[in-house]
């Protein structure tokens, strides 16, 4: 009788064998370091197979220990290969922060639009802050200002609709919601432009 645990164990062992074969065949030091991370995930898989509250409690210390080892090894690799950080780079000068911003900002802005209103503006603004902090903000700023101005006008227009044509309240709510979204987003993204420039 093969239970679900045994099946999972079998699958885990197949994964472990694949990971170990890849480690065995790889000769480049950096690639081996990355592959050990794969092996670590297999260890977490074995713990997770227990599938009780205790397993959940055991995964966290296991993960911490493994990440500590990975970081120590990465540091040794840097010293060993004589790789040094560029002199005039900030703490945010990481490759991921060059490639991720469009995707993350896109997701956050989209989600903000779905939420709409004040909280939606905050979420979307966060996306734009992230984009501006990572990518710099030379020409983005003027566009944001313009959009903010139009949003203010739309907001006021929505109030006039509320007062003059109360039966069109739903239309007014939609305009006001969209306008406040853009307004809050623009306010938020100002924070992002603040730290972008070294002269400011």
């Amino acid at each position, binding site marked *: 009788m093969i239970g679900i*645990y045994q099946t999972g*164990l079998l699958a*885990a062992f197949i994964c*472990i064998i694949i990971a*170990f074969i890849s*480690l065995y065949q790889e000769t480049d*030091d950096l690639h*081996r*370091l990355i592959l*050990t991370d794969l*092996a*670590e995930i*297999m*260890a*977490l898989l*074995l*713990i997770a*197979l*227990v599938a009780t509250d*205790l*397993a959940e409690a*055991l995964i966290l*210390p*296991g993960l911490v*220990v*493994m990440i*500590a*080892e*990975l970081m*120590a*090894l990465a*540091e*040794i*690799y840097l*010293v*060993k290969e004589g790789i040094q950080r560029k002199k005039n780079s900030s703490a945010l000068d990481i490759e991921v922060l060059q490639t991720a911003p469009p995707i993350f900002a896109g997701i956050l802005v989209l989600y903000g639009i779905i939420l709409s209103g004040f909280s939606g503006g905050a979420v979307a603004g966060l996306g734009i802050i992230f984009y501006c902090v990572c990518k710099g903000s030379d020409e983005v700023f003027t566009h944001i200002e313009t959009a903010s101005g139009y949003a203010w006008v739309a907001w006021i227009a929505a109030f006039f609709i509320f007062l003059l044509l109360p039966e069109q309240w739903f239309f007014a709510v939609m305009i006001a919601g969209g306008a406040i979204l853009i307004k809050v987003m623009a306010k938020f993204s100002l924070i992002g432009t603040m730290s972008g420039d070294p002269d400011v």
Partner: protein
Amino acid sequence: MFDQGIEGAGLFMIEFGDIVPYFSVYTATLFAFAIIFILLAAFSIPEKQMDIIFGGDAYYAKEIKPADLRFQRFMALACGTATLGAVVTGDIFNFTLFAAMIGITNIGIVASSRSHHVLNAAYQYGIVAMIACVPLFGGAAMILATTGTLSIWTLAGIGAAPILAKILLVLGVMGEGMAPFYIGKAEITRAQGAPFILMVHVSSLLLFLRAVEIILVI
């Protein structure tokens, strides 16, 4: 627990539910041994390397920077403390965590030397130690899954732990306790690493002895 013929007499135990830290004659001996070497690491100063120029009377001594010394000493003390934990604990998963911590601190002790070949050896050992986490944690997790407990106190003598889990545990401890081989490879038993390198050997030895005890008892 203490009728297995391995532990010797039971000296002291604290019953926290099912997780029981205990001292038997065996583990108390290991504990005392670890304490002695922690004190040695805490109160000793590093050995300086002398390079003699052949064909003359000249020699020069390499200076060890205070920052390097502090780092190495801290790592040696941390390694000793992790060894103490591994020796005393009554929980198999805690034992594996302490074993992994010994691995990390061993990497630190070896890596505090600046030479390229030493760093290479430390790196190789680090990769082995990281891979060894798989059987180490895997063994502990399998014991938990099959018996429902991780307490050495509860598992003692009932023989419920599967043989595969025991094998995995031994494999994991072998990987974590592999450091002395890499020290031999880097040739830093004297001069560059002494006396802090001693802690690597001691922790490895104690880890193996404790693992043998756990494997025989559960």
